[in-house]
């Protein structure tokens, strides 16, 4: 069973969202997602300042197995990206909820957060997919 921290929110495309307060969230991919992908070898992230609507392609994760799009789980503007992933993409595998984070986003519509899955909802979804 994969690790699904209860203090995070999730979307069905396997990204996690951490509320940092003040309308800012941190985004990454879940333990379940990194497990499906296998060893991550490249992560392509957007530029700081870029704006995304919910569901837009935010980046790409390339693993030994496949290339996989990462979608913006919420609308907003990129405040920061995790530059460590350029030299150490394996952080996505070893610490998906910590050092393997992808981007920090300033939300353009904080009410969208209400549509996200909680840990139980996401666990159910993973269960159904397996």
């Amino acid at each position: 069973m994969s690790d699904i921290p209860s203090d995070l929110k999730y979307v069905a495309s396997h990204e996690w969202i951490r509320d940092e307060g003040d309308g800012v969230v941190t985004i990454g991919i879940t333990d379940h997602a990194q497990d499906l992908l296998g060893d991550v070898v490249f992560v392509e992230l957007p530029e700081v300042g870029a704006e995304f609507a919910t569901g837009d392609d935010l980046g790409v994760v390339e693993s030994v197995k496949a290339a996989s799009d990462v979608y913006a789980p919420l609308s907003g503007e990129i405040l920061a990206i995790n530059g460590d992933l350029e030299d150490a993409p394996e952080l996505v595998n070893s610490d998906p909820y910590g050092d393997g984070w992808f981007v920090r986003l300033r939300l353009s519509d904080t009410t969208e957060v209400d549509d996200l899955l909680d840990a139980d909802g996401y666990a159910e979804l993973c269960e159904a997919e397996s």
Partner: protein
Amino acid sequence: MGQKTALYDKHLQMNAKLVDFGGWDMPIHYGSQVEEHHIVRSDAGMFDVSHMTVVDVTGADAKEYLRYLLANDVIRLQEQGKALYSGMLNETGGVVDDLIVYLMTEPDVTGEWFRVVVNCGTREKDLRWMADHTAQFDNVALTERPELAMVAIQGPNALAKVTSVLSEARVKLINDLKVFQGRESEGWFFARTGYTGEDGLEVMVPEEYVADFWQALADAGVAPCGLGARDTLRLEAGMNLYGSDMDEKVSPLMANMGWTIAWEPAERDFVGRKALEKQRETGVKQKLVGLVLESRGVLRSHQKVMINGEEAGEITSGSFSPTLGCSIAMARVSADIADTCHVDMRGKLVEVKVVKPSFVRNGEKVYS
């Protein structure tokens, strides 16, 4: 649930992630494919390859039968245990399968015994094909050996670690093996062959002994490795994968397997010979090359190769090379390709270097 090898319980014990592979439940990795890859390049790793198909070919006509069945010529096996890589072709010169054949007995004795190892995904087709082609020979017997499990131990420290768990007699047998040679020992078979570009052994073991052998190797510091690492290792070594880099519609001349065709003696007839001779005369329009992507991203099979904006072939195998830290691929392209081209990667044209399809040997980069 798929078929299980005799090592299935060991794989579960060692936390393998299992996937379906040609109808078998096989380990794809035991945690990290990339780490397993590095272990084979730097130390020693072991792979369960018991799913591969082993067929013994015996009888007074065994040699003549194989000389007819295979594009390479088993007459080249002039020492007991020597191995030969060959394509088994159809009449149009396409590859039915690629295989390794060992001469089990001394050469030129009456009733030579050969051992053939073919792919798992092609087992039924191969067995049928091989049986059908015995028709014109009076005395050939084909015996499949499903009771033999097989473990490949590969890497610079593979031989030292394997010999640390075996009897003195077997250690001597292994120490006397040349590269690409195998010998039997009381029902076991030790061959200095592999699919990684490193030194190592492929060991056939009666399945009742294989779990203990596997555990002894693990205790001696040989890391279990999955088929994921096996694929990136073979790709770096420039070794073809059947079904990806060639198949029944592809000639060995278009699959970097020209060296496996024994044209001489010209009077030897083999299945596919006429078609190949015609291709050799007129020249083939495509060949298999290596591609190296020095920027970020990963080349994947079926991506299109572009030359001057025109489609000029496609990638047959592509992945990330853990040893080189960038992506590499094999691609079937126009024979007149220059030393660079482009690949359509998810809608973006990316420049790649064209090299001979061999990237890493014995841990070192080999292309330039």
